[in-house]
């Protein structure tokens, strides 16, 4: 009899566990917002200016493109853009990130609202001419996909502004350690989405994020 009771107890406890698990799942799913609906979130710390809440904004910048033309943040203001940091001789994560950037390029090739902006972290080797060659080898139009170079410290500082960490490290392949994050910026220079450029599945989600951001501009 005692044994039976024990069994009953275990059974009941198991049932309770299942019910709890079900409840947790239901709560989790109901809280999770539908990723395909509504506006994208705003990344970064909010600040207060004259009593208003202001979203984090990428600071102004000026770099030089693959044709040695100056490119400023103002030039990019009409566009939303996807950005990453790399260097042409980077042996580790850059090839796969570029492969994923190419997916983004291919999908939005004909959408004039979106640009891609890749920054080099090795301006000494990655001159404008070298970046131009790199773009040619990628078979991409530099109207659509801009390659930026400039002062090394400014480029490294800029990567931090995009929440992409980069720093010089003699032990890292190529002497520079950096993350393969790709970041989506809107026309107000707010950071709206990011993804690991080394993870094709993450980029698949990121493509949906870009679609969601583009919808915001269709309404205008």
């Amino acid at each position, binding site marked *: 009899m005692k044994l039976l009771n024990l069994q009953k107890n275990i059974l009941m406890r198991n049932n309770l566990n299942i019910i709890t698990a079900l409840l947790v799942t239901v709560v989790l799913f109901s809280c999770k917002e539908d990723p395909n609906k509504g506006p994208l979130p705003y990344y970064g710390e909010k600040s207060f200016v004259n009593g208003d809440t202001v979203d984090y904004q990428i600071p102004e910048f000026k770099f030089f493109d693959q044709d040695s033309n100056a490119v400023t943040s103002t030039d990019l203001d009409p566009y939303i853009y996807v950005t990453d940091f790399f260097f*042409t*001789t980077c*042996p*580790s994560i850059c*090839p*796969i990130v*570029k*492969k994923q950037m*190419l997916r983004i390029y291919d999908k939005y090739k004909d959408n004039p609202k979106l640009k891609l902006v890749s920054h080099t972290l090795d301006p000494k080797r990655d001159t404008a001419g*070298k970046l131009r*060659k*790199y773009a*040619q*080898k*990628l*078979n*991409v139009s530099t109207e659509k996909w801009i390659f930026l170079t400039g002062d090394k410290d400014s480029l490294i500082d800029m990567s931090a502004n995009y929440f992409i960490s980069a720093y010089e490290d003699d032990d890292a392949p190529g002497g520079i350690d950096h993350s393969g994050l790709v970041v989506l910026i809107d026309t107000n220079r707010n950071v709206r989405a990011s993804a690991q450029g080394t993870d094709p599945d993450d980029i698949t989600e990121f493509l949906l994020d870009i679609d969601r951001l583009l919808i915001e501009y269709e309404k205008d």
Partner: protein
Amino acid sequence: MKKISVAIAFFLFIACNHNTYKQGKDLYESNCAQCHMPDGTGVGDLYPALTKLGPNYDYSMITCYILNGKKSESSLLEMVAIKGLTDIEINNIINYVRAGMNGLKGEVSIADTRKLIPECTE
């Protein structure tokens, strides 16, 4: 007992034969996939696709590229030499690229690869 051993040996033989390109695939993934991509499709013309080499390509030349690296025509990016592979390992990589990625029958023989190694490293 003897019969069982023979049977086991036979099955192992079949199993191993079935995975002729397994070592080549593993070595490809750890040495080549980073630039040529895990599926061999490459990245634009920066890191060339290995899946479209076709039947007329001289696959034995891959031996030299593995041993010496390869400077690209645009001298933009250089393929680095892959160090520390044995002749058999190189041969297995080549035949994985040839059969696994390009779907070609037959293979580059280990004799061909062995013959090329001193020529490549001259």
